[in-house]
């Protein structure tokens, strides 16, 4: 590295070196030490920030940048404390209403929600299937119908092993039934149609062959569901039309151009896979961004912060919305989605919009008080949606019910799981992890929360998200493949996680998926009101007060700059909670309150 001469660097460090040495000598970050804030001389008010330094703090806190020189000069020219206060207040007002503040809240949201990759729960990059869409491909150059979109036999299917008679079949049908792009695209008799595609409303594309016929069933099969195939040889996945007569559906709603969506653009082969997180506006990137963008949307639009766990809406762009719709369409009960025309009126595919979950996925219900007991009824209509708890990105990142429970307790109840003290005795491990064995130290808290997330499960190969016990996702007669295989092993009757009897399961196998707390169990001191699914969990979080206690701690640390010392500031937390709740849990007024405190205005 090109650095300054070492002697010079030594000299340059003269300001900083003492700090470095102290940092090495001590065991804590001095800026975050609980004692750091008691070392300042306050009696004479001398720790008050100057006008320009306070302006800088406002900018960095709310906008992540520093003021312009002109802004500093204006502050310097202010002739009185009143004039300076006015400039500070204006800076706060302008910042809170700016787009940049919203972007800062997206970053804060990622930290707050601990967003991660969805690869844990869903298909890896090479297997990303473009939201379970059937692939349409442009006719290749040099053919009669160059550029027209068709459903062609994937070259990957040719890699499947042949049956004993030498014929390669997929789903029991010879793959030649589907035809290859060259023979269809050079045919003079191929059907062509102009269709308004869902991805570009108000325009038309030319289709060839069956892609544009609009057929929704063929050979007795539902074309909208699609079939998933994974070719081991080249580690690629593909969603396949389930019958040779299947089309892309109305307005090509079952399909996407390539698995990549990025059209128009470079040749398909050279386009990056849509499963890559590095691709702006890509589908998987959008799923990763969704929770943090919802977080920022709630703050920016002055909605109650508790909407993060109680709300019936999320924010999506066009591709992410298509992912919701396609996942919903995997349930045969949701065929009405074909006519929903959700895609019309989207002027910019990359714009993020607030949309109710239920408008995209009919099994994510808007009913805020939905009860269902599988011991006495057959199948629910779905589960109530619940803000970030039911966003696709976070479901993939926190896949599995116990993971979801533990992570959400950490994030929204500030619950820290700690090791048991040495020598603690536990009952021998038995059927119930929440009550026996050393695992019970954490699982007695995790399992009553995990109950609420049991119906959500991924098929790790295809990325299909199941909402167990509903529509096509009822318990199968023969259990093969995940998530049912895993559920079958995990949901053990007569446990805290699965509080039903063996006979309940005998009457209704879906009884395993019971997803509310029975009166004998409690979470954060509450059993809930019987609302099923993640919303039931969200209600307990809020009603217990833990959501608010945790929120004010995190907001205080983010905007004031230091964590609250829970061992000495219990009453301060209570004060903040009262203020937060009094303001209907809206974050912006709470930020204004925090920024008006002396703690924000004292500094260096």
């Amino acid at each position, binding site marked *: 590295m090109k650095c*300054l001469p070492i002697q010079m660097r030594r000299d340059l460090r003269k300001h900083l070196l003492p700090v470095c040495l102290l940092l090495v000598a001590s065991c804590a970050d001095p800026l975050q030490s609980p004692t750091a*804030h008691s070392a300042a001389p306050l009696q004479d008010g001398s720790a008050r920030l100057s006008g320009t330094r306070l302006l800088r703090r406002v900018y960095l806190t709310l906008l992540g940048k520093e003021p312009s020189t002109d802004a500093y*000069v204006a502050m310097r020219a202010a002739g009185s404390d009143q004039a300076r206060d006015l400039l500070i207040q204006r800076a706060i007002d302008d910042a809170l209403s700016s787009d940049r503040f919203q972007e800062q809240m997206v970053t804060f949201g990622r*930290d707050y929600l601990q967003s991660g990759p969805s690869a844990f729960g869903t298909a890896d990059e090479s297997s990303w299937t473009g939201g379970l869409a059937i692939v349409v491909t442009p006719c290749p150059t040099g053919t009669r119908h160059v550029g027209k979109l068709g459903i062609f036999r994937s070259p990957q299917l040719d890699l499947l092993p042949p049956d004993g008679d030498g014929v390669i079949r997929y789903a029991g049908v010879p793959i030649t039934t589907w035809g290859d792009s060259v023979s269809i695209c050079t045919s003079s008799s191929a059907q062509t149609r102009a269709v308004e595609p869902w991805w570009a409303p108000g325009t038309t594309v030319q289709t060839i062959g069956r892609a544009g016929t609009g057929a929704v069933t063929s050979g007795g099969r539902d074309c909208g569901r699609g079939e998933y195939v994974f070719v081991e040889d080249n580690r690629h996945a593909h969603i396949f039309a389930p019958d040779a007569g299947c089309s892309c559906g109305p307005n090509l709603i079952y399909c996407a151009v390539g698995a990549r969506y990025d059209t128009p653009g470079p040749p398909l082969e050279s386009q990056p896979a849509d499963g890559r997180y590095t691709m702006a506006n890509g589908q998987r990137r959008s799923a990763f961004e969704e929770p943090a963008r919802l977080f920022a949307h709630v703050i920016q639009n002055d909605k109650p912060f508790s909407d993060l766990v109680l709300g019936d809406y999320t924010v999506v762009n066009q591709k992410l919305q298509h992912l919701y719709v396609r996942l919903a369409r995997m349930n045969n009960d949701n065929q009405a989605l074909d006519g929903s025309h959700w895609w019309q009126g989207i002027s910019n595919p990359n714009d993020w919009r607030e949309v109710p979950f239920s408008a995209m996925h009919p099994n994510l219900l808007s009913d805020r008080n939905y009860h269902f007991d599988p011991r006495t009824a057959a199948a629910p209509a779905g589960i109530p949606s619940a803000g970030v708890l039911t966003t696709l990105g976070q479901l993939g990142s926190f896949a599995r019910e116990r993971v979801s429970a533990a992570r959400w307790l950490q994030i929204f109840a500030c619950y820290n799981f700690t090791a048991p003290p040495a020598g603690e005795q536990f009952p021998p491990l038995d059927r119930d992890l929440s009550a026996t064995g050393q695992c019970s130290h954490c699982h007695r808290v995790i399992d009553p929360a995990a109950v609420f997330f049991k119906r959500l499960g991924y098929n790790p190969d295809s990325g299909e998200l199941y909402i167990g016990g509903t529509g096509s996702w009822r318990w199968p007669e023969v259990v093969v493949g995940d998530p049912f295989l895993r559920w079958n092993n995990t949901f053990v009757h007569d446990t805290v996680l699965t509080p039903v009897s063996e006979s309940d399961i005998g009457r209704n196998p879906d009884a395993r998926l019971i997803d509310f707390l029975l009166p004998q169990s409690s979470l954060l001191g509450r059993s809930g009101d019987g609302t099923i699914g993640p919303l039931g969990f969200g209600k307990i979080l809020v009603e217990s007060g833990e959501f608010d206690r945790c929120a004010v701690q995190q907001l205080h640390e983010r905007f004031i700059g230091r964590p609250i010392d829970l061992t000495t500031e219990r009453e301060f937390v209570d004060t903040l909670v009262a203020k937060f709740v009094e303001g209907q849990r809206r974050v912006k007024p709470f930020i204004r309150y925090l920024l008006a405190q002396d703690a924000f205005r004292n500094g260096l």
Partner: protein
Amino acid sequence: MRSETGSEMRQWLLASMGLIGATLFGCGTGTYSWLDQGTNPGGSVARLSNDEVFRGLTPSCEGCHGAGASIPSFSSLAAFENLIVYNSGMVTIGAPDASELVRLLERTSGTGRTMPPNIGFGDLAARGQTQVTMAQIRRWISELQPRSGGGTTAARDAVTLRRKTAEQAVETLKDQLGLTEEDFLAPAGGTPNEPYFRTLDVENYPVRAPDSTGIITDYYGQTVAGQLFLSLGGPNLLNNRKRTKVLGPGFLQIWIPLSQAWCRTAVEKPNNSVFFRDASLSDSSDSTAGVQRIRNNIAYLHLRMLGESPTDVDVDDLLNSIFLHYLQPGSSPAERNKVPWIAVCAALAQDPLWLTY
């Protein structure tokens, strides 16, 4: 309004940090000897002190309420006294039956909670599996006296400081030095949604968040840019690495050379009017007018980078101790001034007032 100069503020900050360092030196945590056998359950109901009750309950409670827990009531005796003993929501002095602590331990809380969860301390105590009995706890509450002299409280209006996050450090320094991403990365194809870049020179310390969109195509450059970002605190959430905001050696050992390298890039950048607003690289310190322009630009950079108007003493300090000290031999002022301007710039970018807010 406060009247300290920048130098005085820096000294104050350093002194504060020194005090903290001295306070924390060693960082040992206290350990507690076990209850004397004479106070163990089994005999008559002994009267226990706060410390004895704390030590008696700790084995049953610290697993969930120790240091680092969300309710750290058993992280120390002081925490126990603040959060339990003298918290009217937990203990009603003189009235065990009205105390939430007793209800939680005996499974009679109106909140439905039991401590320990789903077990109940009272049941454990009845089986002789605890270090104190419920009778002892009840007697302790009955005879408890109000706290004299007040407890430990935090000075909530005291000074708080935080260091810039990785994003803030990178963005603000680029902005103040007149640098952009093009000074570190060159376009290398890709698509509008996923542009490709290549690093111009890894010795310029290119920094890029690993969670960004777009791809740096040269593997070494991609690795360096991502690792530098992580060294500044991250995060890299796509690899489940959370943000750190510690102002520690790990941050500083990268920030020192990085800020020097970026200052060099800014000084060498042609026509960089963001950095050289009130002077030019060729202004000579040999002339009175040249010195005045250099002083003006130092004052401008001080305000721009530290958010504080410098006093004449501050400007003199930077001019005499740094700029003139590092004057190089050379035939032209531009040759002689390059290192001094880098030095002034780096001194400001490494100033505690720059690093924190």
